[in-house]
């Protein structure tokens, strides 16, 4: 039993420390994400749209629902794959970090063809002096001269630079885990809901006052602060193109009042939540009066379309009246089906075009200006006012700090990894008659071919430093040639 467990542990360890597995998981994840982006996902569309698609493709929808392909990004198997990737990342990079910390660095310059750069030149001075000059040159070029030792009759020096790049790779890969953790924290402990307000309306940060209460309910906390939407500020260029959008709030919390703004790209942050300005529209005030002129009902109707002339509809509660309404913020006469159009989106001369049905019987069709009323058989329906409504997404970004940390670590890691390329040079100085022969070999862990120019420059500098050295910059050992032919 113990042997089996030992074998299983060994297998698990080998699997989790496998680079091939990492690559296979990365490819699998890429393919999964492609599938999820192309197939209709239930979470992306509204329920009506999804049902419509389902009715048009019943067989495909059934198969997709059975296999979980209609909710790829929230399926167990997707998160299982992500978890396996995370474990693999953690184990591989943990091992690398351990080895690096112990000084067990990978040696560069062994691409598949096993090539490195090489050069040689002669000097008229003894090996000890040459070695000193070479060591100075190598150090001046930013290399850390690691070892100076004698092998037989040769003096050997080894210079290395750019080793911090390996830590960059570890930092980057671990940052992916941090981002994943931030995402999980956000999904489990974050919350998101919707709040709809009309100008002048006050709501409290409690579940009942939300249009859609924040979910998951267990993660949401309610600060109870009072929010009053004072005004929605809208600006248009040439009267039609939206250029500015902001909402001013009066906020009351713990007895302290303040005025705050929520703008597009600048959400209001209060009570641990962000109020993200999502959408706006017009909210005309309709007043229903009976034949005696007594007010029976009044409401602001949040029109869900904001382009002038598009139709919306509502039912007056407690009656059989259905009202279709088109709003023209700055009404002008035009050759349209309603006889109206809007010169701009500014609400300077608002007018509504109403079609009122009483139990499916049309009782009124025509334009109604602001402060006018549409006559009905049993009274009138007045267009008594106009305000803006604003929709806010209220989010609790619990994982934000972790996500940002992951983002920055990832960028730092990438810059280190590819900006600091490990390069090594090995120099052997042997006695040759009264002088010396200097053999230099070098390689870069990445971009080894492009390292040629730097290597050639280094060898030239060495030869120059060595007094009386015969300068031969041509690469004699290995198969490198100069990159440029001009």
């Amino acid at each position, binding site marked *: 039993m113990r042997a089996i467990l030992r074998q299983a542990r060994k297998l698990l360890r080998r699997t989790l420390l496998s680079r091939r597995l990492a*690559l296979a998981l990365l490819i699998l994840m890429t393919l999964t994400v492609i599938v999820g*982006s192309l197939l209709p996902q239930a979470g992306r569309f509204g329920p009506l749209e999804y049902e419509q698609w389902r009715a048009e493709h019943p067989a495909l929808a059934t198969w997709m629902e059975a296999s979980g392909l209609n909710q790829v990004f929230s399926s167990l198997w997707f998160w299982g794959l992500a978890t396996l990737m995370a474990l693999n990342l953690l184990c591989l990079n943990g091992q690398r970090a351990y080895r690096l910390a112990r000084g067990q660095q990978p040696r560069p310059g*062994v691409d598949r*063809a096993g090539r490195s750069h090489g050069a040689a030149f002669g000097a008229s001075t003894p090996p000890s002096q040459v070695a000193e000059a070479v060591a100075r040159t190598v150090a001046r070029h930013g290399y850390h001269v690691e070892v100076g030792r004698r092998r037989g009759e040769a003096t050997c020096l080894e210079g290395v630079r750019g080793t911090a790049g390996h830590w960059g790779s570890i930092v980057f890969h671990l940052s992916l885990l941090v981002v994943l953790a931030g995402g999980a924290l956000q999904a489990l402990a974050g919350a998101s809901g919707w709040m709809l307000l009309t100008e002048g309306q006050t709501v409290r940060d409690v579940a009942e006052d939300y249009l859609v209460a924040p979910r998951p309910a267990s993660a949401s906390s309610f600060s109870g602060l009072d929010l009053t939407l004072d005004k929605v500020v809208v600006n248009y260029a040439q009267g039609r193109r939206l250029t500015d959008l902001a909402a001013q709030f009066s906020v009351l919390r713990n007895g302290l009042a303040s005025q705050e703004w929520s703008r597009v790209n600048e959400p209001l942050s209060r009570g641990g939540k962000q109020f*993200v300005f999502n959408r706006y529209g017009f909210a005309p005030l309709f007043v229903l009066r009976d034949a005696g002129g007594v007010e029976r009902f009044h409401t602001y109707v949040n029109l869900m379309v904001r382009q002038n002339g598009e139709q919306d509809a509502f039912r007056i509660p407690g009656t059989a009246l259905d009202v279709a309404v088109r709003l023209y913020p700055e009404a002008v006469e035009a050759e349209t089906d309603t006889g109206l159009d809007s010169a701009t989106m500014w609400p300077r001369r608002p007018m509504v075009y109403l079609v009122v049905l009483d139990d499916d019987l049309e009782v009124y069709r025509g334009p109604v200006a602001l402060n006018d009323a549409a006559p009905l058989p049993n009274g009138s329906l007045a267009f008594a006012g106009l305000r803006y409504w604003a929709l806010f997404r*209220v989010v609790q970004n619990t994982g934000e700090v972790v996500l940002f940390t992951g983002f920055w670590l990832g960028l730092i890691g990438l810059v280190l990894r590819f900006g600091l390329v490990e390069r090594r040079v090995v120099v052997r100085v042997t006695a040759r008659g009264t002088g010396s022969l200097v053999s230099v070999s070098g390689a870069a862990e990445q971009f080894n*071919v492009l390292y040629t120019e730097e290597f050639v420059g280094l060898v030239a500098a060495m030869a120059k430093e060595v007094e009386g050295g015969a300068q031969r910059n041509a690469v004699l050992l290995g198969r490198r040639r100069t*990159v*440029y*032919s001009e």
Partner: protein
Amino acid sequence: MARSETLFFWAAVVLYIASSAVYIAAFAFRRERWLAPAWRLALLGFAAHSGALLGRWVATGHPPVMRDYENAVAGAWVTVAVFLALQARYPGLRGLGLPVVPFALLMLGYGLLTSPRLEPLTPAYKSFWLGVHVVFAWLAYSGYAAATGLAVLHLLKRWAPTLVNGNGWQRRLAKQVTYTRMPEGDALDELSYRMVVFGFLADAVMLVAGAIWASYLWGSFWSWDPVETWALVNWLTYAVYLHLRVSMRWTGARMSWLAIAAMSTVIVSFWGISYVTNTLHSFRTL
């Protein structure tokens, strides 16, 4: 378009057409000395292109980050800039102008087919992070495009010795590739890798900046929107490339083929996906 923008835009188009014609002629008739004037025409075209972008910036009062037209023109500008920078660093890469300049011309043409009208910046675009996102997107895709071009040149360089014994057009192609004083095959391979690294880094910044911008605009860092998701697919595809290169030590022809294939995810990400599915991220409606 503004008047100054129109003048510079069409000047850039004419110069790029002239440059493309000279590049094609240089390769078709094996006139290596024509590469220098072709490159100079491309440089002049780039100067006019810069004027067009500047003119648009002044006329609209905002950087060219909105809608397909501005993205196409700015993206073409960055692509040519990357080519010129590469060519200044590695003079033997003049031949890379053959795919790059016509590609930039096509992007300008595509932009012109969409609406080039002057528009103010809408509230959704008024964000520092959007600026970072768009700039690094251009850099990333230009880097990947340059990597693809270098990969193509690398493959041609590798095939040249086998083409020499082929039929008429194969022998001519072989002579084109060998006579033009390009870097060696290994150097082209590594340059392509280096451009992938450049693109990958810029892509990472683009994704991060986009996520931050999305959190301020929509209240969510990531919503698996198709365009967002394909940007991630892009990045993951090039991550596979880098893993194969660094961990598995793959080099040579198969990496070049992979660089060319990976470019398809860039094309889908930028042009394809917003036409195929519903997305919050439509460049045309944001």
